[in-house]
């Protein structure tokens, strides 16, 4: 292991030793029979999911960095006949729940629990109790039912699997709508909703209580999306032209807000980001970058994700954080 001496300035806890193993190989998982096409990790639940070109999905427990044995495959899921293109676990937002529980404890005059498991056990609400056995969360129960794994393949099919502790990895449902490869899956615990985007230029919303399709929309070009707190954010991958109009809440920044709340549909909002209320399926806002605000020409949207209360937008060679609320979106 390569170590590097360095001077450490005062640094917020937790501090860790400066060690740069630079990719020390722990294990090689070689039970796959086709090329890997998709990997997904849920750190809180301790789940690693691997999808391959032959449509097989394998579920492993995650391992700590000092693990002495390679993780053993927990489930091998067969059903897809084309390459796996997207994977997500429909799990409660444990970090969010943890924060709410700590807030509640603080309000009650108690110190937040430092230990994750203890914090989980004290929690009340959607997550009843969680312990970890062999890296995979055991006994996890949610208001929405069993712990589900959602996988999508290049033929457009989405499958839901029961990966609860004592389940056998049975396929719960097959969600069929897309006709080409599904590129993105996003899950919102608040609304128990799944969103999918595919190369068929369509975006769909699914109710995971009934596995019924709530919403579908044609969006020219391939899209990426993310979902949080009943707000779906859809952006067109690739280039879109910045707006030449200034003004709105973000007029001093590189973002403009186009107030379209209540407007019907959002297929015409391909030239930017669309924020859609999952419950009412109406557009809350449309966001397009302003021309000349440190950028020029055509922007290239590459990545959308929620981080805490911010929307992270990866575009071109830059990343923008948008602080979102239901009433307004202000660039940070």
């Amino acid at each position, binding site marked *: 292991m*390569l170590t*590097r001496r*360095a*001077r*450490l*300035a*005062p*640094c*917020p806890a*937790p*501090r*860790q*030793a*400066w*060690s*740069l*193993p*630079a*990719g*020390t*190989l*722990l*294990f*090689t*998982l*070689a039970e*796959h*029979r*086709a*090329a*890997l*096409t*998709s*990997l*997904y*990790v849920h*750190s*809180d639940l301790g789940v*690693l999911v*691997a*999808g*391959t070109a032959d449509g097989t999905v394998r579920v492993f427990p*995650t*391992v*700590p*960095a000092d693990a002495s044995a*390679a*993780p053993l495959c927990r489930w091998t899921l067969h059903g897809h006949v084309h390459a796996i293109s997207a994977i997500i676990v429909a799990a409660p937002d444990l970090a969010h729940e943890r924060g709410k529980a700590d807030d509640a404890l603080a309000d009650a005059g108690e110190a937040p629990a430092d230990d994750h498991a203890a914090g989980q056990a004290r929690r009340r609400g959607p997550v009843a109790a969680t312990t970890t056995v062999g890296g995979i969360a055991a006994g996890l129960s949610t208001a929405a039912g069993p712990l589900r794994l959602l996988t999508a393949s290049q033929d457009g099919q989405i499958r839901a699997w029961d990966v609860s502790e004592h389940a056998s990895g049975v396929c719960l449902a097959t969600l069929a709508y897309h006709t080409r490869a599904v590129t993105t899956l996003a899950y919102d615990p608040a609304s128990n909703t799944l969103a999918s985007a595919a190369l068929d230029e369509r975006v769909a919303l699914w109710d995971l209580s009934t596995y019924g399709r709530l919403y579908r929309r044609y969006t020219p070009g391939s899209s990426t999306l993310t979902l949080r707190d009943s707000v779906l954010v859809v952006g067109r991958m690739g280039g879109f032209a910045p707006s030449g109009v200034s003004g709105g809440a973000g007029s001093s920044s590189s973002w403009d807000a186009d107030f379209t709340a209540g407007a019907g549909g959002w297929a015409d909002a391909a030239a930017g980001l669309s924020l859609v209320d999952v419950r009412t399926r109406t557009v809350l806002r449309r966001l397009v970058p302003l021309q000349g605000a440190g950028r020029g020409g055509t922007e290239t949207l590459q990545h959308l994700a929620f981080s805490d209360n911010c929307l992270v937008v990866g575009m071109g060679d830059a990343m923008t954080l948008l602080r979102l609320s239901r009433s307004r979106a202000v660039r940070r």
Partner: protein
Amino acid sequence: MTGSNAAVWHVRLHLGVVVAGCASGHVLLLPIDGDRPRRSLQDGAAATAHAGSVTCMAVDARHHVVYTGGADRTVKVRVSGALCCPTRLHA
């Protein structure tokens, strides 16, 4: 950013480390110096690279472990490096 002669297909950012998967099968972990990635401090990653292209990648932020999937039909499990506050490091 250097360290690979092949196209970088997959990139993740984790605890101040850019994890890059390349078409050559190399997995590079590049610490960020300030706000810019710098060359990997170790070329040893090449020794444990995939025999085929890196096709997918995931990071376990809790355990600081990086998982990479390759066209060689394997998943490599590797430590991402216990880096903390890299911008405050001075070599």
